[in-house]
């Protein structure tokens, strides 16, 4: 082949290679938008909507105190926060039921709740006069019992608890002692039962369930300003996330499985207080702040927890549990002197996959009803 022919061959080869390269690169990179890496927003501080929400909830003004001739105007406060237990080492976990209901995870949980086509929910509405999806705002779990806040103006407490011994208490509360109760079913039949729990209602805003009348009275005392001077277990500045509160170290240790008995013991020994915040506005992200007295011991506990999470992740990877491994990717411990923050997250997609059966069963039940 002469020089001219050889040159022509090189030119043709070059053109062909460029075409092949373009096709390969086009196919290889793909034209669909790149998958976004999951990003999780952890609840680390109060955000503007939560600040506004806390402000809106300051509705209760204590009566004016006349002291040595001076009148001091009391600042309005959130009755539910005022009702919380006081002092160190107490447990109080607030679930923002209304916010949770309107979150993506809330929609999924609602599907699970209404797997029977919503029959039980309707029954509860008719019996109590309370629509949990509309009227319930917050739910608090404490060592002593439970508190619910919301709009209970339509509640049928008198019909439900009318047989019990009850009394007016304080300025706006009614306390029901433990006793019998009769429930009228939608079909007109009645069912009788006995409840060992004492109940108090306050201004159609709060419903307190406790072990004894004295306990629920103590809660009403705190709401109406007759309680101890100590600050409540959760300060207003900590009311962020869809679930938040403080857990006693004992409660936290009890949550750990038996295989982690050593870790539970260590938590009891080292930690003093655990503050918890869970955000469910998108992915479910949790931040737990563990505080203790000894900085070194707290840091060591943080390292142990970090190592335990790391081992769990390695195990999940080794066993091919991709979801769990991905979930534990976000887990980390952030030491900070005498405290550390433990962060964990569950991507919403993982929860959606796990709870997909609820939606299917709900749709099937609703279709059958039609």
């Amino acid at each position: 082949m002469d020089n001219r022919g050889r040159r022509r061959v090189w030119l043709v080869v070059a053109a062909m290679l460029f075409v092949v390269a373009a096709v390969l690169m086009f196919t290889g990179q793909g034209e669909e938008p790149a998958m976004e890496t999951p990003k999780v927003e952890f609840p680390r501080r109060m955000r503007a909507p939560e600040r506004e929400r806390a402000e809106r909830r300051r509705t209760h003004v204590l009566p004016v105190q006349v002291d040595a001739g001076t009148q001091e105007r009391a600042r309005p406060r959130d009755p539910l926060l005022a009702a919380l237990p006081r002092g160190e080492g107490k447990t109080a976990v607030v679930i923002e039921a209304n916010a949770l209901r309107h979150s993506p995870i809330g929609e999924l949980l609602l599907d699970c709740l209404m797997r029977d086509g919503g029959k039980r929910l309707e029954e509860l509405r008719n019996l109590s006069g309370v629509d949990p999806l509309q009227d319930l705002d917050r739910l608090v779990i404490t060592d002593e019992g439970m508190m619910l806040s919301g709009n209970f103006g339509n509640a049928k407490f008198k019909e439900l608890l009318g047989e019990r011994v009850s009394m007016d208490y304080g300025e706006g509360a009614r306390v029901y002692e433990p006793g019998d109760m009769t429930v009228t079913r939608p079909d007109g039949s009645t069912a009788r039962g006995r409840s060992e729990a004492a109940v108090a209602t306050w201004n159609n805003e709060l419903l307190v369930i406790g072990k004894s009348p004295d306990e629920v009275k103590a809660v009403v005392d705190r709401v109406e300003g007759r309680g101890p001077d100590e600050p409540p277990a959760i300060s207003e500045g900590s009311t962020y996330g869809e679930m938040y509160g403080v857990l006693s170290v004992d409660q936290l240790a009890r949550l750990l499985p038996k295989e982690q008995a050593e870790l539970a013991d260590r938590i009891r020994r080292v930690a003093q207080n655990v503050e918890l915040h869970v955000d469910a506005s998108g992915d479910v992200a949790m931040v737990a702040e563990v505080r203790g007295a000894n900085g070194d011991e707290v840091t060591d506990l943080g390292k142990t927890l970090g190592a335990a999470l790391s081992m769990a992740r390695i195990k999940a990877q080794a066993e091919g549990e991709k979801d769990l491994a991905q979930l534990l990717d976000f887990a980390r411990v952030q030491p900070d002197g005498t405290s550390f923050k433990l962060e964990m997250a569950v991507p919403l997609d993982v929860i959606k996959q796990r709870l997909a059966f609820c939606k299917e069963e709900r749709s099937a039940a609703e279709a059958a009803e039609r």
Partner: protein
Amino acid sequence: MKPVLGIAGYVLREALSRKFILAFLVGITLVLTVVALSLRIEVVDGALAASRLFGEELRNSIRSVDVALRPVYQAAAFLVFYGGILFGIVACSDFAPSLMSPGRIEHLLALPIQRWHLLAGTFLGVMTLAVGGTLYGTTGLVLIFGVKAGYWTAGPLIAGLLACVGFAAVYAVMLTTATLVRSAALCAASGFVFLVGGIIAGYRQQMTPFFEEGFGREAFKAVTLVLPRLSALAVAAGDIASSTPLEVRSLGLLLLGVLVFGFGALAVGFWRFEGKDY
């Protein structure tokens, strides 16, 4: 093949005689030594519990060591990819023009080899140099973090090799430029232009909407369709180094595409070199 290898050896000897190539190797060694001596990592059951750099404790969170090291490996991959190509452009821009300088080219053309052997040999020599340097640097990095953190991954090594493929495409363009104009500066400039073009080509999908519909957008799409998608390769290198899922549909095809582009550019060089009078 023998003449191509002969020319490659000739290029390598020339490179080793240049002081700043040696300085580059010494530089990599120094960086690796400093990292090895100054970094202390405490790992507890696979979790990065604490780390110190130059004796100062770094405020790190305690998390799985591979997750904690992801940003480090990703940064290293980008540094190796773009830094390596940039250094390669500057360091190797002079090879081809000096090979084709008057007096030397006549001597080379007098050898019993075909003209394309000369270019192919130069390309092979430079690529051997690039692969050697990359392997040296990335192996050092893998060893340091492997020994210190107990976490062994070939990710950075593979990322380095991807960078070499990217550089192959760029250097092929530089070599072809040398057959058009015997200027090291213009060779480096063409390499730089294709590096920038390659970065843009990798993000063509995201950038297309910035062009008004019509000729402008279609021209942009046509040009970037052919250019080597270097940024896509860099992102893939970062993903591999940090053991995260790949964003590209098929790395193999992308890699092959960039390499084939390089061969295409080299073929243009052969075409030009065959017809040139010296």
